[in-house]
């Protein structure tokens, strides 16, 4: 196996260990210890927090900003798919099996490449928005630009590699950089997002606000 594949695997290990450490730490700290008298159903509220409350109809951050919201969603889907592609490609390299290029596989690869391409364009547009919009620029720090750029470049490289069906040094090094940055920079929200949804569900569930009931006049 080439040095760059090893490098990417080492980076992946670093990422998993660090994110795993945060994960275990959060689990150890556990849920809030609330002594007040509960007035709702936490499990239902957490479910609502992760599903219903994430609906674009429920969030101003989505329905007031549809282009940004859509770009964000596609960007995230693209990232998850690209990481999945990496896992498959890396496994094929480790276990030396060849992915057969046949008509079905080919079609899947074309679809994947199309998605990662659109996602990379979305990532780029979000990057440009962050630079151009004054208020967003004032809110941002270097980490925001690096995180976005790393994901966007990774998506472009993945698209190109899928298209050519050649995964060389540039591909693996890009993946390695992403894996190193993931637990350090803001991409670690990949973990904290789920805990944030849990805590929100816990908070509103405890008080009986979620799941929502219809206001009846």
């Amino acid at each position, binding site marked *: 196996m080439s040095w760059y594949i090893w490098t990417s695997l080492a980076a992946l290990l670093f990422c998993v260990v660090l994110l795993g450490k945060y994960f275990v730490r959060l689990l150890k700290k556990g849920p809030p210890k609330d002594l007040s008298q509960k007035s709702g159903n936490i499990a239902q509220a957490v479910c609502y927090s992760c599903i219903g409350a994430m609906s674009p109809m429920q969030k101003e951050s989505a329905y007031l900003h549809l282009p*940004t919201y859509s770009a964000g969603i596609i960007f995230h889907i693209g990232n998850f798919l690209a990481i999945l592609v990496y896992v498959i490609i890396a496994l094929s390299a480790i276990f030396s099996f060849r992915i057969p290029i046949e008509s079905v596989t080919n079609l899947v690869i074309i679809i994947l490449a199309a998605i990662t391409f659109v996602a990379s364009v979305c990532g780029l547009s979000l990057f440009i928005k962050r630079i151009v919009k004054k208020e967003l620029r004032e809110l941002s720090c270097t980490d925001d630009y690096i995180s976005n750029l790393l994901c966007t470049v990774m998506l472009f490289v993945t698209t190109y590699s899928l298209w050519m069906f050649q995964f060389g040094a540039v591909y693996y090094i890009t993946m390695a950089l992403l894996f190193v940055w993931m637990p350090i920079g803001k991409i670690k929200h990949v973990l904290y997002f789920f805990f944030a949804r849990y805590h929100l569900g816990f908070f509103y569930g405890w008080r009986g606000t979620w799941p929502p009931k219809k206001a009846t006049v």
Partner: protein
Amino acid sequence: MTNITKEQRNKALAIISQTSDSKLETHLNACVRCGLCADSCMYYLTMKEAKFIPARKVDLVSSIYRRYKTWQGAMFPKLFHARELDDKTCEEMVDSLFGACTMCGRCVKHCSIGVDIPFLVKKGREMLAAMDMVPKTLQATVDAAINTGNNMGIPTDEFVDTIQWMEEELQDEMEDPNAGLFLDKTDKNVFYTVNPREPKFFPLSISAMGKIFYAAGEDWTLSSKYYDVTNYGYFNGNNTEATQIARNLYDEIHKLNCKRLILGECGHGSRAMRWEGPNYLKTKYDFDTLTVVELIGEYIRNGRIKLDKNLNDKVVTIHDPCNLVRNGGLLNEIRFVVNAAAANVVEMTPHGTDNFCCGGGGGALAMSEYNERRLKIDKIKADQITATEAQVVVTPCHNCVDQLTQINHTYKLGIIIKTVAELVADALIIENAELKIKN
């Protein structure tokens, strides 16, 4: 502002080091600075300045966390926007966390991630409180509550006089010498609490509730010393003071040996005593705690009071107090009671868990240094009310009443503002004056 000392800094940093559960770490690390929360906050919507974006308030706290509690922030502060906790940061924190956030939580629901922004704002306030940097006006309100038992510093004899005066009025109105506003009675079912604004400025709201208790035949009492439902210690970030204020009510209900603590019409007071109080006091309550809206709802459901909604025939709209609806789960209960008491109820847009704060929350009403800002953001609430064409705005919170009164005056709305108890009292049918008062 003076230079902060090492001791002050350490005390402040201790606040973001406390890890009783995973909530603090989660929210300190979750914001992705997408900026999409901006349009959910009335401060940003009115002022259109980046410093009012909710995420900026989050960043004030999380950047300090990154600087002192993460290795990457300590090593590469510029890269991760990790800030020193210095005078400049503190100045910004006071202005943004006390002066530009009512802790309404509207942004939370709409945040793309689900960051609990007011939770972090509260942590920031706790840090400032640990460094003695609470705005003086807000601190004075807390001091009054600590020193006198109520946030307006009303002397006990003045309060007792007001209650007696209202009691006479109630007896005249009910034509019943047994009708009463009871003080310091023991072994009652209900221990009632009020916002000190009521005896000070709105005594008719106390008599409205007295009338409802009378009609329901309730066995109830007020304390002449600890009747204050508010707890500005929740807002100034000093948990020791918040605990002391909560303890006043906790001890008093035990002293008078009452069964149920009924939280008067005050959003933050209800929140502080019902949801935060047991955690401040580190004990589960051994008495029932509910808001007066829920109690009235119970009376209506059980047939203990009868209402004629046609007695309130003006167009009524509801202002949802953030701490009772979004942060308290009373969305439907308020509507149940208001609909039972008024014939013509219309909703604001948006309303319920999406409603905008009155603008006076988070202790804003107590902080006169931010008055101009507070009244400016209220354009949103004024426009919301105007759009309903309602003649009456009803809200179960005296802080909101106060703020809405100022909005009414500033934006010349010409509306009537009522509490839920006042609305219900106006719709009461007193069938039998010889009611089951057992006092």
